[in-house]
C-alpha cells in the first residue's frame, strides 16, 4: 500500500486559513461553529487568530447523519453547544477536512434547528475531493486528492500542536 509521505502541515494551514478569512469576516459579527472533533480545534485557533468577539460554537452531527439506518448511533456523541443566537447570525462552519460533504449537510440541518442564520460560510483546512453533494468551501487554503479507502485525520498532541495523519480504512 503506497503511503503518502507529504501530508500538509496543519499548523501552517491554520495560519493560511485565518489569512484567507480575515478580509471577509467582521470580528464583531461573525460566529464560528466547529464540527467535532477536529473542526472544534481549528475553530479555537481561528477564533484567536481573527480576534472574534462571539464565542465559538461546537457541533456534533451524530443525530443528523444520513447513515444512521446503516451504521446506527455513533458512540461518543458529544453535546452540541451554540453559545450565541443563530437567528440572523453570520456563521462560519469550520471543519478540518472536506470530503463527501455529508457532514456539512448534517451540520447545516442541525444549525437550522437553532434558528435561521443570515449567512453560512464554510472554512476547512484542506479539501480532499470526493464530493457526493453539491457543497463547496468558502475558505480552503489547500487541496489534495486521496483514494476513498484513506482517511485524512487531524490529531492534536499533548502540547496542542495539530498534525495530519493518514489512516487506511
Amino acid at each position: 500500500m503506497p503511503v503518502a509521505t507529504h501530508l500538509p502541515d496543519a499548523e501552517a494551514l491554520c495560519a493560511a486559513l485565518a489569512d484567507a478569512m480575515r478580509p471577509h469576516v467582521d470580528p464583531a459579527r461573525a460566529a464560528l461553529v466547529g464540527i467535532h472533533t477536529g473542526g472544534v480545534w481549528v475553530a479555537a485557533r481561528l477564533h484567536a487568530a481573527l480576534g472574534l468577539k462571539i464565542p465559538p460554537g461546537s457541533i456534533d452531527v451524530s443525530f443528523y447523519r444520513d447513515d444512521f439506518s446503516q451504521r446506527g448511533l455513533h458512540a461518543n456523541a458529544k453535546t452540541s453547544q451554540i453559545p450565541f443566537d443563530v437567528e440572523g447570525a453570520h456563521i462560519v462552519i469550520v471543519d478540518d477536512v472536506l470530503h463527501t460533504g455529508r457532514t456539512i449537510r448534517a451540520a447545516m440541518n442541525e444549525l437550522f434547528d437553532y434558528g435561521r442564520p443570515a449567512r453560512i460560510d464554510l472554512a476547512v483546512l484542506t479539501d480532499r475531493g470526493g464530493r457526493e453533494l453539491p457543497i463547496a468551501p468558502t475558505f480552503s487554503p489547500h487541496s489534495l486528492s486521496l483514494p476513498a479507502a484513506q482517511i485524512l485525520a487531524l490529531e492534536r498532541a499533548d502540547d496542542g500542536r495539530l498534525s495530519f495523519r493518514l489512516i487506511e480504512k
Partner: protein
Amino acid sequence: MSAFGKQPNPQLNSHGELQHLLTIEGLPREMLLRILDTAAPFSEVAEREVKKVPLLRGKSVFNLFFENSTRTRTTFEIAAKRLSADVINLNISTSSANKGETLLDTADNLAAMQADMFVVRHASSGAPHLLAQHLAATGRDHIHVVNAGDGRHAHPTQGLLDMYTIRHYKTDFSQLTVAIVGDVLHSRVARSQIHALTTLGVPEVRVIAPKTLLPTGIERLGVRVFNDMREGLRGVDVVMMLRLQNERMQGALLPSTQEYFKSYGLTPEKLSLAKPDAIVMHPGPMNRGVEIDSAVADGGQAVILPQVTFGIAVRMAVMAMLAGN
C-alpha cells in the same frame, strides 16, 4: 429462552449491541456507561428552538401500556417525538386472566402495521421479555422492545435515569453510599436501581424497609439491609425513596400509612443523618406525608424534578441506540 438460541443475553444482538432493553440485570458496565454517555448530548436538544432531532424520522413507536402510567408514558412519548418518531399510544386495560395472549395478539396486529418499536408497560413480570421472545421466534426481531415497567421485575429506564441523575450530581460512582428506602417488595424500580448501582461499582448499596416490605433473599443482590431508617441513613450520599404501592398491597403488610410515615417517611430530621450534601430522589408519583415529607420533597436536597427532565434524555438515548442496532 429457547427462542433466543445460544445468545447469552436476549437483549443483545449477535454483534453484542443492544437490541431490546428489558432489564438492567446482566448488562455489562460498559453498556450502562455508554447509555449514560449517550444521554448527555440528548439533554441539550431540549434547549433548542426546534426540540427535535431526525434520528427516528419515519419510525413508528407504539406505547403499549397495559397498566396505567401517565408520567412514564408521557416521558416516553416526548422522547420518541423529540427523535422525530411517529408515536401511537395504546392504553390497554386488561382482565387478569389472559394477559399473555392479549399482549402477543396486540403485538402481532401492530407488527402487521409496520411497527418499529414497542414500549411496553405490563402488570405481569416478564411480559416484555415474552414479547421479545415472540418477535424473535416469528422472525420479526427487527422490532425493538423497551420495558417501561413489568410487574415487580424491572423498570430499566427508570434505573438508568436514576444513575444519570446520580452521576450528574455526584460524578463518581466508586465513592458512594446509596440508600434505597421503602416498599422494596413491590418495587421494580428498586430492583433496577440495585442492579444498576452494583454494576456501576457503587461500593455500598443499602436497602431500608420494614421486614414485611422486603423480598426474602434481597441480600443476595449485594445490598446491606436495614430495618431502622435512622441507622440506615447515617452518612449516605444518595437517598432513593420508593413509592409506597398501596394498589399492589395484599393483606396487612402495614399497620397504617401514618405509622409507616413515622418509621419510614423521610423527614428533614431523618435526612439530617445523611451527609450534608446528600441528594434525595423519588421516581414519582410521590405520596406526600406517607413516604416523604413535603419539606423534603420541596427542599434544597431534592432532585426529583431534574430526574424527570433527565428521564427524557435517557429514554431518547435508549430508543436511538436500539433503533440504530
